[in-house]
C-alpha cells in the first residue's frame, strides 16, 4: 500500500466538510454558498474514494462519480438562479430574500 494512512484522508475530509459547512452557515453571498456546498460534496467524495481504496472495492468510486454528476447538475441550477437574480438587479444577499417568511 502506497501513500499516506487512511487517518490523513479522514481528517482532511473532515476539515474540508467543516470549511464548507461554515461557509454555508456564515456567508451571505449565494455564489459563495454554492461554492461551499461544492466543497462539502467533494469532502464526501474524497472520503468515499479513500475508503474504496482501503477496502479494495469499486463501490465507493462509482458512488463518487454519481455524486459528481449530481453536483454538476446542481451547480447548473444554482448558477442559473444566481444569474437570473443578477439580471434582475437583485442584491446577491440571501438574508434579503425573505418572502417565504411564515
Amino acid at each position, binding site marked *: 500500500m502506497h501513500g499516506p494512512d487512511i487517518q490523513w484522508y479522514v481528517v482532511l475530509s473532515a476539515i474540508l466538510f467543516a470549511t464548507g*459547512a461554515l461557509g*454555508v*452557515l*456564515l456567508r*451571505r453571498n449565494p455564489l459563495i454558498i454554492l461554492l461551499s456546498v461544492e466543497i462539502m460534496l467533494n469532502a464526501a467524495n474524497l472520503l468515499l474514494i479513500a475508503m474504496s481504496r482501503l477496502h479494495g472495492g469499486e463501490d465507493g468510486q462509482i458512488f463518487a462519480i454519481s455524486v459528481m454528476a449530481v453536483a454538476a447538475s446542481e451547480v447548473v441550477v444554482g448558477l442559473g438562479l444566481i444569474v437570473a437574480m443578477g439580471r434582475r438587479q437583485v442584491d446577491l444577499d*440571501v*438574508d434579503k*430574500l*425573505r*418572502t*417565504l*417568511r*411564515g
Partner: protein
Amino acid sequence: MTTAAWVCLLLPLASAAVITVCGTLIPRRAAAYISTLSTFGAFAAAAVAFAEMWSKSPGHRAATTTSWTWLSAGPYHFGFTLLVDQLSIVMMLIVSGVGSLIVAYSVGYMDGEDEERRFFAYMSTFLFSMLLLVEGGNLLLLLAGWGMVGLSSYLLIGYYQERASAIAAAKKAFVMNAFGDATMALALFLLIQHTGALGYASVFAASPHGGAVANLIALGLLGGAVAKSAQLPLHTWLPDAMEGPTPVSALIHAATMVTAGVYLIVRCHPLFEKAYVIEDLAAGLGAATLLMAGLIALVQTDIKRVIAYSTMSQIGYMFVGAGLGAYPNAMFHLMTHAFFKALLFLAAGIAIHAVVGEQDIRKLAGVGKLMPFTKWVFLIGSLALVGIFPFAGFFSKDSIISSALDHGWYGDVIYAACLVGAFLTGIYAFRLFFIVFTGEPSAFTREHFHRHHGQEGPTSMLWTVGTLGVLSVIGGLLQFAPLWHPLTDWLAPVAAPIVEPTNAEEWITSAVAIAVGLAGIAVAWAIYGARRVAAPRALPALEKKFYWDELYDIVWYRTSDLLARGLYAFVELPLIGGSLAAVGVVFGTGSRELSLAQNGLVRSYALALASGLAVLTVVFLAVR
C-alpha cells in the same frame, strides 16, 4: 314430487323477474296475465306434488331436496333445502290456490292503475316469499322467507306511495314485523348454540327439554309469530295495513301472510311442547286478541278495518288451537279462514270499486240493493265467519273451541273467552252486513254507484269471488271432528294433536257456539237491521282501540324522544361539541405559533440542518 315443489316455488319468482326486467316493453295487461298464469302454474305444481304424495304410503310422504349449500360458517352448513311433507303441502295448496284466485281478481281490480306492473311484480314476489317460507327445509330458510314476506307486505301496503298515510302504515308494519324477526333470529342463535343445526328434524331431536333455554327459544319463536300474525301486543300494524289495495288486504293481510305465525307454531310444535308455559302463553294471547279485536270491530266505521279486526280475532282462534296443541284444527281453521276472509275482502273490494273507492260504511250504506251478487257472497262470507252450519267456519272454529275443554281450568277460561268471541263475531259481522248491504241506498251511494259494462264489476272479479263463495260453503265439509277427520289423519305424522276432546264435548260445543253466534246476529239485526233498538253509544276506549297506539307512543316514541333531547342538551353539546371545538383551537393556535419558525432566512434553515446533523452524530457515536 320434489320437482313439482321446485316449480311451485320458482314460477312466481320467474314472473316477478320477467315483469321487472321487461318493464315498459310489455303492456300493462301482459304483466297482469304473466303474474296470474304463474300463480295458477304454481297451484298446478302444488296439486301435482299433492297427488304424488297422496299415492305414497303415510310413512314415506315427507321428502327433502337440497339444491346447494347455501351458507357455510365453520362447522355449520345450511343447504338451500326444500321440505315437502304433509304440513307444507297443505300450506302450499292454500297459498298458491287462494293466491291465484286473488291475483286473477286483481286483473280487474287494478285495471287502469298507472303502475299496474309494479303491483303485479310485488304480488309475484310475495307469493315466492310465502312459498319459500312454507317450503323451506330448515329454520334459516324459514327466517329468510319470513323476512321477505315482511318486505313484500311493506311494499304492497305502501303501494299508493303518493299517500302519506299509506307510507306511514307501511313503515309501521315493517318495524313491528322487524321486531318479531329479531326475536326469531335470537331464538335461532340459541338453537344453533344448543343443537348445532337448524334443520327441523335435528333441531327437534336435540333441543333442550324444559328449563330457561327451551322457554327462551319458544318465546323468541312466539315473538315472531305474534308480530307476523298481529296478535297482542304487536297487533297495531294490521288495521293500518288496510291502506294497501284491497286484493293485498285479502291475500297478505287475511288469507296467507298473517297466518304464517300459526304455521310456525304448528311446524315447530316440538319446541313449544318442550316449553309448555310458552305454549299456554300463545293460547292466552290468542284468546285475549280475539276478545279485544272483536270489541274494537264493533265500532269501526271503515269496511276494511272491520274485516281486518275480524282477521285478528280469527287468527286469535288459530293461536288458541295451536297453543292448546290442537294443531290440525288450527291448520283447518287457517284453511277455511283463507277462503271466507279472502271472500269477504274481495266482495268488499267489489263494492268499494263500484263506489269510487269509498270505504266508510255510513256512506256505503244500502249498496247491497244495487249489487245483489255481492250481497249474497258477502252474506255467505259473514255466515262462514260467524260459524253457522253448514258454512266453513262452523266446522273449523268449533273444533278449536271444543279442544279447549281438554286443558284443565286454563282451557275452561279460554273456552269461555272463545264463546264470548263468537258472540261478538256475530254482532260485528252482521252489523257490517246489515249496514252496508241491506236497507235503502244512501244518497252518496246513489250518486256515485256505477256499473261495469252492465255487471257489478269486471268479470275477473266476479268469478274469483264466486269460486271463493263456493269454497266457503263446502270447504268446511273436509272435516267434521265428531264424524270424520281426514285432515287430522293426514297431518298426524307431522303434527299430531295433543288434546282430544270427546265427541260429546264436540257436539255440545257446536250447539253452544251456533247459539251464541245466532244470538249475536240477532242483536245486530235488532240494532242495525230492523233498527228496533237504538244503537248504544260507542265507548271511547273502543273507538280509540284500547289506547294501544297511544301507549306505544308514550312508551317508545316519547321516551326515546325525551332521551334524545336530553342527550343532545347534556352530552352532545357540552361533551362532543365542546371537545371538537377544543381540537380546533389547539391546532389553530399551535400552527400559528409554529409558523413563526419559518422566518424565511435560508441560513437559519441551514443552521437547523447542521445542528440536527451534529446532534444525530453525537447520538450515534454515543450509542455506539
